[in-house]
């Protein structure tokens, strides 16, 4: 009785990008500005819109797949692969250029946490507003009110304007409303990329619950651990087309293998994608491992960060960590662990260096997370998974350690006291 819930046939979506809108000289900009109105007006009157000089770009190209009722399907792919566009077309936010899709059932879309939240309204008011926007009736919210508030853990602040909420509270409330939406088909974009680990865990739990209730879910994420645990099936999009479609375990593995880039010891973060206002007041421009030399297991690790302050910042601490490719943090190095914090004046830039004596993380490929916190605990800059880093076997790596599976992620030698009855074996 597996009825088809979503049937996508040859779906394509084209965008037009304004050409030569970048890198113009001042003279060109001025002369364009003088001539453009006449030119644009002429083309607008001919009904060509404002994009006379445009380039075409296919965000989706001939995508076809079926999703059965009750199936939980993960959608993965690199940035720009068309994942978000696919979700937007399926939730009717934007129209396809060609092809069609058939949707059987009520669709709930969650492309962003807190869409339509108004800072000047209270938590309670926003619950109703956001609910209405997502397609919930007032009666439905009334019925689930206590459940939503309890999930969000904002009982005391429910009548406070949300602009006074901490970012964590805000996210929890926004997710709680969306999580209690009960459509037959749920379409979820990377909503778990924000918030702290505990929040993410809670959201994942709720998502799992939704999935087990027999609802159809389409789920976009970069978090491979989440994809693996929630989805039975994965569709891998690449350059707007379906590259692979199959059981999640094998596709995720293939994806992870492919995404491994050559190990680079220098990571440029100037143009990296940041959420919220991260990087606005204080920014990590780049970081370099071991002065550009490879990272070796069992050896010293040196990291130097180049930073720049755009505001006066206080109580500053740095941190970096390595996570597994599935997104689980394995190791963290913090600058304020038993050490002072610093203040940095606006406009200053500088280099901060950190060393650890022995890097015990097993050889392999990891995701690098870096962040800078301010004295009030808020993040100034935060880039989880900003690069993939390879730790190579070093001179002190025992050969047996090439078998990663046995020994976990970290292997230490430790101090051992043998009894005298035991004899040292020098062979």
């Amino acid at each position: 009785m597996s009825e088809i819930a979503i049937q996508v046939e040859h779906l394509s979506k084209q965008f037009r990008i304004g050409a030569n809108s970048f890198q113009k000289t001042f003279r060109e900009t001025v002369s364009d500005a003088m001539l453009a109105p006449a030119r644009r007006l002429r083309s607008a009157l001919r009904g060509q819109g404002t994009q006379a000089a445009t380039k075409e770009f296919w965000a989706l190209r001939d995508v076809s797949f079926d999703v059965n009722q009750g199936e939980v399907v993960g959608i993965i792919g690199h940035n720009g692969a068309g994942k978000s566009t696919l979700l937007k077309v399926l939730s009717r936010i934007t129209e396809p250029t060609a092809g069609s899709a058939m949707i059987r059932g009520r669709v709930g879309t969650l492309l962003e946490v807190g869409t339509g939240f108004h800072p000047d309204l209270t938590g309670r008011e926003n619950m109703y507003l956001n609910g209405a926007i997502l397609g919930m009736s007032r009666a439905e919210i009334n019925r689930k009110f206590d459940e939503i508030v309890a999930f969000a853990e904002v009982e005391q602040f429910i009548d406070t304007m949300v602009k006074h909420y901490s970012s964590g509270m805000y996210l929890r409330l926004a997710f709680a409303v969306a999580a209690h939406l009960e459509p037959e088909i749920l379409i979820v974009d990377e909503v778990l990329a924000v918030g702290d680990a505990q929040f993410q865990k809670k959201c994942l739990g709720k998502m799992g619950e939704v999935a087990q209730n027999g609802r159809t879910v389409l789920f976009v994420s970069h978090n491979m651990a989440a994809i693996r645990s929630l989805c039975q099936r994965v569709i891998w999009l690449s350059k707007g087309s379906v590259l692979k479609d199959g059981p999640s375990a094998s596709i995720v593995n293939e994806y992870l293998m492919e995404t491994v880039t050559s190990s680079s010891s220098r990571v440029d973060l100037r143009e990296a994608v940041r959420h919220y206002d991260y990087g606005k007041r204080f920014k990590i421009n780049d970081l370099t491992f071991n002065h550009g030399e490879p990272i070796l297991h069992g050896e010293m690790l040196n990291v130097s960060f180049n930073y720049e302050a755009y505001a006066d910042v206080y109580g500053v601490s740095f941190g970096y960590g390595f996570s597994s490719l599935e997104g689980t943090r394995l190791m963290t190095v913090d600058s304020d662990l038993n050490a002072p914090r610093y203040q940095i004046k606006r406009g200053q830039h500088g280099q901060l260096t950190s060393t650890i004596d022995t890097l015990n993380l097993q050889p392999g490929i990891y995701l690098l997370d870096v962040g800078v916190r301010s004295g009030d605990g808020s993040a100034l800059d935060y880039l989880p998974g900003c690069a993939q880093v390879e730790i190579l076997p070093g001179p002190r790596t025992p050969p047996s350690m090439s078998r990663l599976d046995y020994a976990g992620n970290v292997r230490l030698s430790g101090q051992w006291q043998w009894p005298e009855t035991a004899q040292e074996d020098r062979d």
Partner: protein
Amino acid sequence: MQRASTTLQTTPITRIEASNGWVSLQLRELWAYRELLFFLIWRDVKVRYKQTVLGAAWAIIQPVFSMIVFTLIFGRLAKLPSDGIAYEAFSITALVPWALFANALSQGSNSLVGNANLIKKVYFPRLTVPISTVLGGLVDFAIAFVVMFGMLLWFDITPTMRMLALPLFILLVIITGLGVSLWLSALNVQFRDIRYVIPFMAQLWQYGSPVAYSSSLIPNQWRWLYGLNPMAGVIDGFRWSLLGTGQITWSAMLPSVGIALFLLITGALYFRRVEKQFADMV
């Protein structure tokens, strides 16, 4: 395609594909989303005067101050005729419906751009955005109306049975304001020039409407032409039903109503036609 009225037995089936040319208005779907319409109006009203010192008093200040200025300049200095009514009462009966229209014009036209984050992230009938903005203006109008009514009593102008016709003229403002908003809000998504056109368009339109002067100044043979401005019909209607001045003639009212309905229907059709680009362009 509807969401609200579905049950598990009748699973709704949605077909998604490229649309071409004119598309249906989907009024039934709009009706299914009436609760969202209500919440959007409620949000706008609730937020409008937050963090203002005078709050909802602004709904009164705007027409009342215009009235004072108009009375001083057009009434006392220019001595414009006001159909034998105190100029204060004469102008406020036009300024109150005018404020409703002017707000619809300026806020309605910016409504899609102002709600860009919603449009890019959730599906709902886009028509709800300008409709809610225009209807939200009725709250301010109601406040201003009460003040205006008090003023009329102060000037010894007592209501007659003609007041029963007033809701029709209020409806005419809404239809006109919504029609213009639908056109301009949709155009504004594609051509941001609209934003710069609106203030001076509102000003010209006010000169073309009998706000400061009486439409009895218009020579009779040109009255039908003047009636093509629906706001002329509205203001004449307001004065007729509240002050008892002038008369309502079919030759003046029909063009007003006809143009207002024309704006509304073509506006809605144009809006629906270009709606598919909103999320990509806004």
